[in-house]
């Protein structure tokens, strides 16, 4: 099979790393060759962050380049807009519609672009945009946005519910397990 590529993008502190680790674990149990690439350090401090998950028979590069992503899982609207060129021709963006203002917007040096959903869709990109933050809060914590998004992503994969739940169990602390399971199901609905 051709190597499949999932890009996870967001704002430092939103929990993108956990999402990529969880996906990596799940794909490993399915017998794929897997590479997951992260960036640590300074960019994590509220900056634009991106992690790459690649899987297939044999994966070489640890990173996803422009035109390669089958899915972009975005935690924030502006970040979805930032990475469109990384999407493959038949790729798809799943995004949280939440807006987190970057510092240049906060200081007034730049403006948060309007109607990003429409502009992305106008490029002919398949887009699934929804309020993952609201669903996470409904599940019990705004921190569960990552699991809500994974729930939505799961609709596009033929892994069983059991397999997803197992991956969640091995990735989140036991005391938050029920809340995260709920978040996953809300995202998947």
């Amino acid at each position, binding site marked *: 099979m051709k190597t499949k590529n999932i890009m996870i993008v967001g*704002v*430092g*502190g939103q929990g993108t790393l956990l999402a990529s*680790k969880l996906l*990596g*674990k799940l794909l*490993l149990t399915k017998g794929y*060759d*897997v*590479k*997951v*690439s*992260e*960036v*640590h*350090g*300074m*960019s*994590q*401090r*509220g*900056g*634009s962050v991106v992690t790459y998950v690649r899987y297939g028979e044999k*994966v*070489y*590069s*640890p*990173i996803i*380049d*422009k*035109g390669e992503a089958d899915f972009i899982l975005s935690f924030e609207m*502006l*970040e979805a*807009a*930032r990475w*469109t*060129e*990384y*999407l*493959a*021709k038949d*790729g798809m963006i799943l995004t949280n519609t939440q807006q987190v203002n*970057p*510092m*240049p*917007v*906060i*200081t*007034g*040096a*730049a403006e*948060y*672009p309007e109607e*990003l959903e429409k*502009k*992305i869709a106008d*490029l*002919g*990109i398949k887009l699934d945009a929804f309020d993952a933050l609201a669903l996470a809060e409904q599940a019990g914590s*705004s921190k569960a946005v990552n699991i809500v998004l994974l729930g939505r992503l799961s609709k596009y994969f033929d892994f069983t519910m059991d397999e997803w739940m197992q991956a969640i169990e091995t990735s989140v602390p036991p005391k938050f397990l029920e809340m995260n399971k709920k978040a996953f199901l809300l995202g998947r609905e």
Partner: protein
Amino acid sequence: MKSLMLGNEAVARGLYEAGCGFVSSYPGTPSTEITETIAKYKEVYAEWAPNEKVAMEAAFGASLSGTRSFCGMKHVGLNVAADPLFTISYTGVNAGMIIAVADDPGMHSSQNEQDSRHYAIAAKLPMLEPADSAEAKEFTMLAYEISEKFDAPVLIKMCTRVAHSQSIVESGERNEIEAKKYEKCIEKYVMMPGMAKRRHPIIEERTKKLIEFAETSSVNRVEAGKDKSMGIITSSTCYQYVKEVFGDKYPVLKLGMINPMPVEKIKRFAAEVEKVVIVEELDGIIEAHCNNIGVEVKGKEIFGCIGEFSQNIIAEKLGAEVDEGARLNENVPARPPVMCAGCPHRGLFYTLKKNKLNVMGDIGCYTLGAVAPLAAIDSTICMGASVSGLHGFNKAGNMADKTVAVIGDSTFMHSGVTGLINVAYNESNSTVIILDNSITGMTGHQQNPTTGFNLKGDPATKIDLESLCRAVGIKRVRVVDPYNLKECDDVIKEEVAAEEPSVVISRRPCALLKYVKHPGPITAKSDKCVGCKACMKIGCPAISIVNGKATIDNTLCTGCGVCTQLCKFGVLGAKEEN
């Protein structure tokens, strides 16, 4: 058992399985997780040292005593440890010794993108360069064998994309190694001129033997390709990009050992192909070697020596097709990293900016004090340079009443204290501000000598910063709470005005530490807001102006209260106040 591991975790696993017994490191992105991971194995002693030089010397001492040892650092850390590096190359080791150095091409989290491979050549030491996590483990275990066989510390060179990428690793059992006997050997271990002169030829002979090893070892392997119009020599993560683009189209010589490099193996490879292209990030190290041995190659004239590579870069430069996705025709604002909401550094930097001070900066989260709107830092060079630089600035210039240094607690212990000794000893009228947030922040919360805990999480001797500063000769030592803007302002005004050296300790634990309890988000009475934007001067990500009025992001605000001290209209305040 097969599992996904970061390259750094795989190095740690290799150390564990190879019977490593002693680890001393200083954290630095992208190297930190090696030591954090090895610390989880109870069989291995592991510690954070105050800096990389201390770590390397400690690891050498452990090797001398007969225990397999390790130290890890980022590329710029190797500059700090370069002094012992060059001389332990001469002494060699007793038990095996490994030094991991992690480069950061593209500077994801670094102040320069120096190429550490130069150090292996300059110090005449073997260097292995893994290309994924499986190799990171395998090469680490091999490195101990090389170290003991050739009597040399061995460098493992990581880079961000190997260190911070997870790939599949097969774990094995730990191989308990019996400690080697320590024998006194003045000729080998006392590097004074008479002895060192006899050691240098031994080192040159060692390099010749290492070249023989490089000729035959499977770490340097040729992968066949049908199209002989081009052969590619590469290493590390670049190998992955090359294979991603070309698969097995062209023959590839993958170098796992970057110093010393083979000679005959490269010549034979070159003879089989029409032309040779070198794919390597940063400097032309492999290229220079090929030039030296008379093999004609192309490398840096195609790829340049700046930043990270990727599969598309390799494809474009070598004429393969690249199909990019659609770009949004829109100005997408950048999202630079920022100080977190509730960060204790914010109030302090606001005070420095307000007083229009020149600020000598240093390495840590607080380097973000240079970013707008605070923009409060004038220089950042390397660990410790704030304090020593301030001394020179004040001695030579005439701005001591307008200039301060800022340095974190961990960075101060790393190499700030020596600069402070210079301030006291040579008497510059300098004000040094220690930003004591009780942790090593930027690299992800590591303990250090001022925190009272060691790497394993056990209670440890806590260096008292006030006593230390007084002990080196600073008479004026003050402590402020950076959440209290008036206190900060008063004390800093007094200390820059004072006609003698002084230290201000700005003390408040990192807002991200789990034990820190926050009061919770403040509220904004938007009806009272006149839109003066005084609260926007501190660059807090939790505050925005919406429709001309200040608003608070409840998911980010910790309730630190710094902004409430700036609001003159009673808009921003704790919940109960409003």
